[in-house]
């Protein structure tokens, strides 16, 4: 009855005839730029898709993808050897998003204090027009909840994986997922709030 979440696609971990993800990471840790190219070819689409869905302003998605892979290269030596790099990369992307949110928040706090007015809204405005109802609704919930929900429902990551990737307690993951679903359903179907 319940289809549940999508599993991480194991096929992504190894192309036919290609190196495994742990092999690539091992070479990357030694500074092999071909390995980075391979990793990018294998996962850029998934990372990009995650970031597009998770961010309100799609302009800097390219930069975030770029930074995700650079960060992965930098810490490749710490890769835990799991079969697929995908959750690990998505975790890095999510961390970068969180850092960016904090930086933007600081910027607007400074701006707000300087102008004594209302800080510029993070509402993406016109950009939302082009998005579907679900996407628009998604952008109305907080970024932390949005990222957690996307990691769970779209990327197919388990709650312990999300907790590890975001460096948060698993209880926080469960709370965020519950709140995200409730808010999303409230926005999409007013009058229905889902399970208490």
């Amino acid at each position, binding site marked *: 009855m319940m289809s*549940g*979440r999508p599993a991480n696609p194991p096929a992504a971990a190894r192309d036919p005839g290609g190196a495994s993800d742990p092999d690539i990471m091992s070479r990357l840790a030694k500074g092999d730029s071909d390995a980075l*190219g391979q990793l990018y070819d294998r996962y*850029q689409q998934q990372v*990009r898709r995650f970031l597009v*869905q998770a961010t309100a302003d799609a302009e800097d998605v390219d930069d975030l993808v770029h930074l995700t892979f*650079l960060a992965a290269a930098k810490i490749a030596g710490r890769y835990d050897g799991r079969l697929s790099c995908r959750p690990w990369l998505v975790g890095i992307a999510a961390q970068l998003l969180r850092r960016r949110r904090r930086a933007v928040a600081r910027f607007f706090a400074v701006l707000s204090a300087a102008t004594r007015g209302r800080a510029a809204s993070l509402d993406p405005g016109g950009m939302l027009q082009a998005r579907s109802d679900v996407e628009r609704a998604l952008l109305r919930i907080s970024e932390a909840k949005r990222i957690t929900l996307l990691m769970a429902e779209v990327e197919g990551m388990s709650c312990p994986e999300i907790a590890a990737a975001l460096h948060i307690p698993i209880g926080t993951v469960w709370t965020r997922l519950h709140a995200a679903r409730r808010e*999303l359903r409230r926005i999409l179907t007013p009058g229905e709030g889902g*399970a208490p």
Partner: protein
Amino acid sequence: MSGAPCPRQFEVEAMRDGRLGEVERASFGRHLTACAACAREARALDALAGALRSDPGRRGHADELHRWRERTRLLRAFDGSLVARRPVAPKASWAARKWLVWPVAVSALVAGLAILTKVRLGAPPAPPVLAASIQADQAAVWSRDSAPDNRERVVLQRGTLSIRVDHASFTGRLQVVLPDGELEDTGTTFTVSVEDGRTVRVAVAEGSVVLRLRGQPALAIAAGATWVPPGRSLPPIVPVSAPALGSAAPRALAPPPLAATAPPARGSRHRDPSLTDAAVDFRAAMALLRAGDGRGAAAAFAAFRFRYPADARAEDAAYLRVIALQRAGADGEVQRAAREYLQLYPRGFRRADVESLRR
């Protein structure tokens, strides 16, 4: 919306998120088959997840060209970070440095004066460092320049160009402007032909290119593939695993002098080009010859001789180019190619054969 809520409804989400233990999950699974409210809640959560997953990559999809640019940017940044991480030599002491002050100052002054003089006299700017090595056939009308954004541009109006870009030393972009569109190199070796204001053939030997013709979607052409416009039967696509170089026979190299502008052929970073690339290219040229694509083979042999002048097969390539042109029925070009062979290899093994072809 209707129906009484079930006290166990919260377990739907708990089960979805893996919060239930083995026994609880089995128990709730049985409950789910009997409880309409919980089943409805499960369907609602599934629908929500389905909506999130429905075509999530639609807007996130980047076209091939964009992806390639971003990939190049990433690898460049990574290479830069590796360079930055390398240990630097200890700084020279002041005692050592002070001897450098005067020579450096004088050199800077001389250089400044030289630049100023050149500018005043209207001297042409120094030729840009160009990374693509290009061979043009006799009919080719083309030009090349470089832009400040690390982009090299080749404008092809007519004829055939065989182009090789050494990405090991060139991190920029090469764009070929065609009468009916553009082509961007994302690989290393390819051939493009234009006739009557239309692109009629693109053959990729190594790497890949992206062809953008006006009014048509971008098309990525991979190594070993040959693109021809729909409805055009010639020349045939040659199914070779190794690269196939394009059509039209090149003659003496078109401007600018290739030896001056083209870096020596290099393969990818981890290959020995003298062993690997040459063998692959020679096989590809032979495959074209065997497939009956005389012009393509002639271009490939010419490219081979240009790229590997010191290779033991360079003379064979020069000779086979003559043969390929003869098979293609290009009599005028046969004469030129034969003359070239005799000039390059006056005591060559095939001298007698080639001389007989000139008569």
